[in-house]
């Protein structure tokens, strides 16, 4: 499968994700300014910051939902700055959405099946999947992994919020993900569901790295090894979870100066 070019580019790929000087303007407003971030393969990182710090915009630039105004984005060494989203996804990038972005008219099983189909061949296939369809089995396994087997034939519109959040994660795990962007996966989850989420995240295979945006520090800091702190569209600080947590400047900014 691997072409020579792919292998050559992989040689230089000591970063899973490499952003250089990424800026994103909305009219005169700079949502991101000169953001430079490097994440190793398999690294798990949290992006913290108050509302409007540019976290979700950062994700949108990485996935190509909207391209950066300037700067470059490399994914495993390959310059993907001008790739459409689906090309990046096919290369192993995945994301989840802060507000669940599912297919409410389809069943849980079909949602996951589409996710599996999207990163493999036969997206335009006119043939229905048979009994022993490999992707159908992959979808079954994923549904099971996020504890949704009981509702797999229900339409997504009928699911509870927590179940939709779990499905949201299942869609991002389809195929062979190499790097995942989680956008506030714990939003609106109950304490039990949060615990399940932590289990799912910590049990991901070691080669899968991710960036997680999460306001719940209990979740965020338990599932990552490094933290990037953003403020006003810029990278404000990077470090280990403990360093960030105890940094007075961060506390000033992020915790609104509230010293317990």
């Amino acid at each position, binding site marked *: 499968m691997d072409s020579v070019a792919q292998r050559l580019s992989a040689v230089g790929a000591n970063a899973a994700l490499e952003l250089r000087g990424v800026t994103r303007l909305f009219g005169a407003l700079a949502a991101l300014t000169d953001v430079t971030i490097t994440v190793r393969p398999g690294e798990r990182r949290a992006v913290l910051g108050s509302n409007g710090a540019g976290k979700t915009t950062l994700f949108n630039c990485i996935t190509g939902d909207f391209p950066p105004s300037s700067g470059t984005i490399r994914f495993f060494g390959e310059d993907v700055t001008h790739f459409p989203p689906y090309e990046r*996804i096919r290369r192993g990038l995945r994301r989840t959405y802060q507000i669940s972005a*599912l*297919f409410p*008219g389809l069943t849980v099983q079909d949602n996951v099946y*589409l996710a599996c189909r999207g990163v493999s061949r036969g997206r*335009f296939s006119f043939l229905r999947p048979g009994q022993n369809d490999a992707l159908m089995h992959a979808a079954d396994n994923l549904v099971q992994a996020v504890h949704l087997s009981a509702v797999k034939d229900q339409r997504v519109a009928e699911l509870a919020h927590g179940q939709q959040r779990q499905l949201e994660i299942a869609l991002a795990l389809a195929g*062979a993900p190499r790097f995942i962007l989680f956008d506030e996966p714990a939003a609106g989850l109950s304490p039990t569901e949060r615990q399940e989420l932590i289990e799912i995240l910590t049990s991901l295979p070691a080669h*899968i790295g991710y960036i997680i945006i999460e306001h719940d520090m209990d979740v965020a800091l338990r599932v990552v090894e490094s933290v990037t702190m953003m403020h006003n569209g810029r990278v404000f600080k990077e470090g280990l979870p403990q360093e960030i947590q105890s940094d007075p400047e961060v506390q000033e900014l992020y915790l609104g100066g509230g010293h317990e």
Partner: protein
Amino acid sequence: MSLAHDAPIAVRPAAGTQRPARTWPEINNPAAWIVAAVLVIMPLIANGFFLIEIFATTLILGIMALSLMFLAGYGGMVSLMQLTIAGFSAYMIAVFGVSGNANISLGWPWWLAVPMALALATAFGTLGGALAVRTEGIYTIMITLAIGAAFYYFTNQNWAIFNGHTGINTVATPHFWGVNWRADIPFYYVVLAVAALCYVAVEYLSRAPFGLALQGVRDNPRRMAALGFNVNAHRVAAYAFASFVAALAGVLQVWNYRQISPGSVSVSACIDVLIIAVVGGITRPIGPFIGALIFVLLRTFALDFLVRLGLDGNRFRLLIGLGFLAIVFWSSDGVIGLWLRWRQHQGRDVSRPGGGHRHG
């Protein structure tokens, strides 16, 4: 499997393994078998008038509306040019085949003219679709309506190919194996076979990866892109498929009337197809055929009915319009939606304790 997560397997009885949504709902439905049987033995029951003017015409309009149902119901794209594509296909049959206008028609045999017409009409519809997919919602309607209107005026004014407002007359119909395929009974079966084929194809496709992905595009295009799908390519492919279906209907239509003129591709005829699909219901492939039957029955008999009431017979459109309003007002998925809701209402009292209520 990429996910090495070892979730405790939910202890579920194997009840849900049958997955009813994935099989053919019709196979277990006795009503569907009865309808199919009645359609097959129809020539024994109905005279030539009913066979052609009512049932064949219904099926042809139903196929056109089915192509719209596929785009609108599964893809969320309301295209007003489906009749235009059918009309284009009909014109191509007249132009490439044999007709009374010898100076225009090339005189090809039907088995050459038909693939040519289907290919050209599919290409025409796909190109139109490629324009339309750059837009959403009301703008898709506007672009496809503009294509329909432009084609109508073009056929009116072009004499070299489309023979202006007189159109092309006495179009030849196929004769082979000693059968005149435009005779009432053979033609009815040809139409029925094509309609059944299109119906089965759309139903089958709705559960195939292509159709599922199209429904994903309808529900959430942005997420589809984030799952690795090229959303616009999928939409254009949907237009290509729907265009082919509409083109088949166009071939049948020109054989039915043996002529094609700008009147058959007018803007109001384009809108009729939309009305048929919406009245019947755009969530299921059976809807367009029900809508077409209602439309054809009203068009054929409302005239007498209105005259008997002392009204102008040409007001049958008023009845269709009122029916359309009522349907849109009470049921967003047409007659089929009303029926389903009634059935579910019945079923809830008997067997289904709670659940099973439909949205939309």
